[in-house]
C-alpha cells in the first residue's frame, strides 16, 4: 500500500514514518510475552490508529508531490494497477492480472471489475488512460513522467482491459504502473491536476476514505467498508503533524500517538524501559535507502580516482555505524540493498586503513605540509562538505568523517544548509565540493536517472557528474530486457565498477525502527517491512481505545 519512489532522501524521510522505506529481515523486539496479554481477542472492527509525522501533507495527488508525508497519506486513499507484495514481488492491485508479450513490448492489464471510487462512480480502464495522459501532459508538474514517456501507445479496448505498448522493451515498465490511478470523472475539467480540489480532498479507490485535512494539524481517514480487498479492521487513521521530534516522542509515551519511527538512540537507549515495553512493540528492519559521501567529480581534488579511493580507506564506516546508528544498520557498498536480488555482495571493499589512505594520497602527489595538512603544487587539501540542516544523523556522520579525514591530513569543513536551499542553490547549481546525502533504493534496480552520463542537467539527478561509458551501456542493457539473469549480470557489473571508482563513498543503509502501540495485532514483519498488510491490523474489542467517534 505504500511505495518508496525514487527521490532524494532529505527532510522528507525524516518525517516520522520511516516505514515507507520498506525492508527485509523483520525482527520484532519488545513484547516479551503475548501470554501476559491474555485479553487479546479475535480480529474486530473499530478503533483508530494515530500516526505521528514531522511534516504536513502537501497534497494527495502523489504524481505532483515528492515528499514522504504526502506519499504516505495518498497511499491510504489511492491504488495503483500493481504493487509490491510482502516479499517485494509485483502483484496486482487494481489489475487482477497482466500479460507481457514475448518481445516485452506490450503489457495487457486485466482490471478488477466492480471497483468503485469513494463517491460511488465505477472504476474503469478510462481512468487508467486518463491518468497516463495526465502523467505525460506538460501541464502536469510531475517528477515521475519519465517512465511514462517510454510508452509509445495505449489502448483501452473495453472497460476492464488496458494495454500499454513500448517501442523497446522497458524493464521498469511494469513497476511504473504502480502509480496511483486518478478518477477521470472528477479531474477532467482541470488542466493542471495539482490545482484541482482533488489534491486537497482526494477521492480514490483505496482502503480508506478521506475525511478531513486540517493543514498543519492532522489528516483523518475513515475505513472504506466497500474496499475491494475487504473492509479494513481499523476504523480510522489519523496522521498528526508534530514538527518537533522531542515532542513527538513524549506524545508517543503519553498515548497521544500510537505509531512513530524511532531514532537509533531512542530505539536502543530510551525505549528499553519496562514501562515502554509494556505498551509498545518495536520493529526493526533494513530500510530502503542509503547515505553517502558524494564528490563533485569535476573538482580538481576529486577527479583523481586514487584520491577517492584513499578517502574511502580513511573513512571509518564502522565508527559511523556504531556512533550514529548505534549499530542499527549495514555498511553500504553500492546503490542496492543487501539481500535483494540485484545486490552484489562480492565487490571491492575499502577497509578502514588510514596508513594505506596516506600512502595512496602520497602516490597521487599529496604530501604533508608543515601544519600536517596535505598539499600538492602549493595547494592545501581543504574542502567543504555540505549536508542538509535538521538531519541529526547526517550532521553526526559529517562530524565523524571530519575527524577521520583530519587523521590523514585532509581538512574538511562542514556546512549545513536548510533543505530547499541545499537542493536549489547548491546541488542543482553544482556549487559544492562534496556532500553528504541519501538516496532511497527503489524496488526496481533501474538507476538510469542517477548514474547515466546524460542525466547531468540542472534538474536531473546525476548531480555529481558521473560519466562512465561502460556503466552507461550496462544501464541501457539492464532496462531493455525482462530476463532477470541478464539484468542481474548488468547490475552486478555496475556495482563492481562503482565500488572500484568510488564516485561516492557508500556509507550505510540504516535500519527502519518503529514503535507501535501494543493493542494493534496482526502485524507481520516481512521483507517489505510491516505496513504492507495494514488493512489486516486490528485491535481486539476489549483493548480498543477510541470508541466514541461514531
Amino acid at each position: 500500500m505504500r511505495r518508496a519512489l525514487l527521490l532524494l532522501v532529505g527532510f522528507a524521510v525524516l518525517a516520522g514514518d520511516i516505514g515507507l522505506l520498506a525492508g527485509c529481515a523483520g525482527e520484532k523486539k519488545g513484547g516479551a510475552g503475548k501470554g501476559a496479554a491474555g485479553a487479546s481477542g479475535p480480529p474486530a472492527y473499530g478503533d483508530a490508529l494515530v500516526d505521528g509525522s514531522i511534516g504536513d501533507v502537501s497534497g494527495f495527488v502523489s504524481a505532483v508531490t515528492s515528499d514522504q508525508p504526502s506519499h504516505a497519506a495518498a497511499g491510504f486513499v489511492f491504488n495503483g494497477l500493481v504493487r509490491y507484495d510482502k516479499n517485494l514481488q509485483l502483484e496486482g492491485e487494481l489489475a487482477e492480472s497482466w500479460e507481457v508479450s514475448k518481445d516485452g513490448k506490450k503489457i495487457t492489464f486485466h482490471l478488477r471489475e466492480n471497483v468503485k471510487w469513494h463517491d460511488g462512480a465505477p472504476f474503469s480502464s478510462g481512468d487508467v488512460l486518463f491518468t497516463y495522459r495526465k502523467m505525460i501532459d506538460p501541464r502536469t508538474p510531475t517528477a515521475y513522467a519519465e517512465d511514462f514517456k517510454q510508452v509509445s501507445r495505449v489502448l483501452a479496448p473495453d472497460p476492464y482491459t488496458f494495454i500499454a505498448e513500448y517501442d523497446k522493451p522497458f524493464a521498469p515498465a511494469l513497476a511504473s504502473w504502480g502509480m496511483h490511478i486518478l478518477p477521470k470523472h472528477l479531474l477532467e475539467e482541470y488542466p493542471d491536476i495539482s490545482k484541482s480540489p482533488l489534491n486537497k480532498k482526494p477521492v480514490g479507490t483505496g482502503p480508506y476514505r478521506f475525511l478531513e485535512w486540517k493543514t498543519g494539524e492532522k489528516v483523518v481517514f475513515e475505513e472504506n467498508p466497500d474496499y475491494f480487498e475487504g473492509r479494513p479492521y481499523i476504523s480510522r487513521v489519523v496522521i498528526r503533524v508534530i514538527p518537533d521530534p522531542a515532542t513527538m516522542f513524549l506524545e508517543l509515551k503519553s498515548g497521544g500517538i500510537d505509531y512513530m519511527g524511532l531514532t537509533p538512540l531512542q530505539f536502543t537507549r530510551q525505549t528499553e524501559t519496562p514501562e515502554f515495553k509494556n505498551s509498545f512493540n518495536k520493529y526493526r528492519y533494513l530500510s530502503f535507502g542509503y547515505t553517502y559521501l558524494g564528490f563533485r567529480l569535476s573538482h580538481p581534488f576529486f577527479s583523481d580516482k586514487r584520491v577517492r579511493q584513499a578517502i574511502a580507506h580513511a573513512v571509518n564506516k564502522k565508527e559511523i555505524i556504531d556512533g550514529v546508528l548505534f549499530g542499527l544498520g549495514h555498511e553500504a557498498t553500492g546503490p542496492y540493498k543487501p539481500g535483494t536480488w540485484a545486490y552484489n555482495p562480492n565487490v571491492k571493499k575499502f577497509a578502514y586503513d588510514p596508513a594505506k589512505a596516506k600512502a595512496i594520497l602520497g602516490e597521487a602527489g599529496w604530501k604533508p605540509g608543515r601544519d600536517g595538512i596535505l598539499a600538492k603544487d602549493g595547494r592545501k587539501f581543504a574542502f567543504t562538505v555540505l549536508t542538509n540542516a535538521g538531519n541529526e544523523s547526517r550532521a553526526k556522520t559529517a562530524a565523524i568523517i571530519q575527524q577521520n579525514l583530519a587523521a590523514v591530513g585532509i581538512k574538511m569543513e562542514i556546512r549545513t544548509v536548510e533543505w530547499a536551499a541545499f537542493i536549489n542553490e547548491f546541488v542543482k547549481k553544482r556549487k559544492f565540493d562534496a556532500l553528504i546525502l541519501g538516496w532511497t533504493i527503489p524496488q526496481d534496480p533501474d538507476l538510469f536517472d542517477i548514474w547515466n552520463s546524460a542525466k547531468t542537467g540542472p534538474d536531473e539527478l546525476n548531480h555529481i557528474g558521473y560519466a562512465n561509458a561502460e556503466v552507461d551501456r550496462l544501464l541501457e542493457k539492464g532496462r531493455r530486457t525482462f530476463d532477470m539473469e541478464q539484468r542481474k549480470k548488468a547490475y552486478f557489473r555496475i556495482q563492481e565498477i562503482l565500488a572500484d571508482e568510488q564516485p561516492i563513498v557508500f556509507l550505510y543503509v540504516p535500519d527502519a525502527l518503529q514503535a507501535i502501540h501494543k493493542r494493534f495485532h496482526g502485524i507481520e514483519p516481512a521483507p517489505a517491512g510491516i505496513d504492507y498488510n495494514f488493512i489486516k491490523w486490528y485491535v481486539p474489542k476489549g483493548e480498543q481505545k477510541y470508541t466514541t467517534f461514531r
Partner: protein
Amino acid sequence: MAKGREHSILLDFLRRLVRNRLAVAGGAVVLFFFVLSAFPHVFSRHDPNRIDVLKVLQPPSADHPLGTDELGRDVLARMVHGARISLKVGFVAVGIATAIGLLVGLVSGFYGGWIDAVLMRFVDIMLCFPTFFLILAVIAFLEPSIYNIMLVIGVTGWMGVSRLVRAETLSLKERDFVAAARAQGAGNARIIFRHILPNALAPVLVSATLGVAGAILTESALSFLGIGVQPPTPSWGNILTAGKDNIEFAWWLSVYPGLAILFTVLGYNLLGEGIRDAVDPRLRGR
C-alpha cells in the same frame, strides 16, 4: 571636567551598584561566564570537537565532569567553548545594534527637523515588524553562519537604542555646556562626539547589557529551529537543542546548557537593572 570629579562620580556609581544585592549577584554570574569563556582551556583539557563513539552519552564522571554528548564529546569542554561563542554572538550583535542606534539617535536628536522626522518614522515602522520574524526571513535569504546571525540580530535590534539616545540628545543639546562649547566655536561633530555622546552613554550601557541577554536567547531560539550557530561549532543554543531530544534519558545534555543560558540572561538583566538604578537614582527601575 576635572579628573577628581569624574573619579568621585564613578565611585559613587560603584557604591550604589554594590549596595544592590541582586545586581551584585547578576554581575558575579556575568563575570563567572566571562572568565570561563576567556580561558576555556583552563577549565577543560578536552577538545570540544573530539569524537569518541565508545563514550557516547556517558553520565558525569571524574574524567567528564558534565558527562559526554551523543558523539562522545566532553560536555564541559563544549560548554566552556560554547560560552565563548554564545557571548561573542551576544556582544557583537549588541555592538552592531548599539552603533547603529547611537548614530541614528544622535543624528535624529541633534539635527531635528525633517531628518528627525524621517528617521523616527523609520524607527516606528521597523518596530512594527515582529523582530524574530524579520530575523528568520533574513536568515532565509542569507545562510546561518555565526557572522550572519550576529549581523542580523544587530541590524534588527537597534531601534530601542536610537529612541533612547535621541531623547537624551534632545535634552542634552539644550544644556549650558553645549551652548558654551558652541560659543567657543566647536563644530557639530565635536559637540556630538565630545559633549553629547559621553553624557548619553549611561542609558545605552543599560540597554546594551539587556541586549546581550536578548541576543543569547535569540541565538538559542534560532538553534532550536536549526538555523542558529551550526554544529560542530558549539554554542549553548545548539548544545541545548541537541540535548532536548535526550531530555529524559541524558539529562546532563540539556540541564547544563539550559541553566547556563538561564543564569547568564538572568545575570545580565539583574546587572543591567542595577546599573540603571546606580547611574541615576531618579530612573530607578525604569
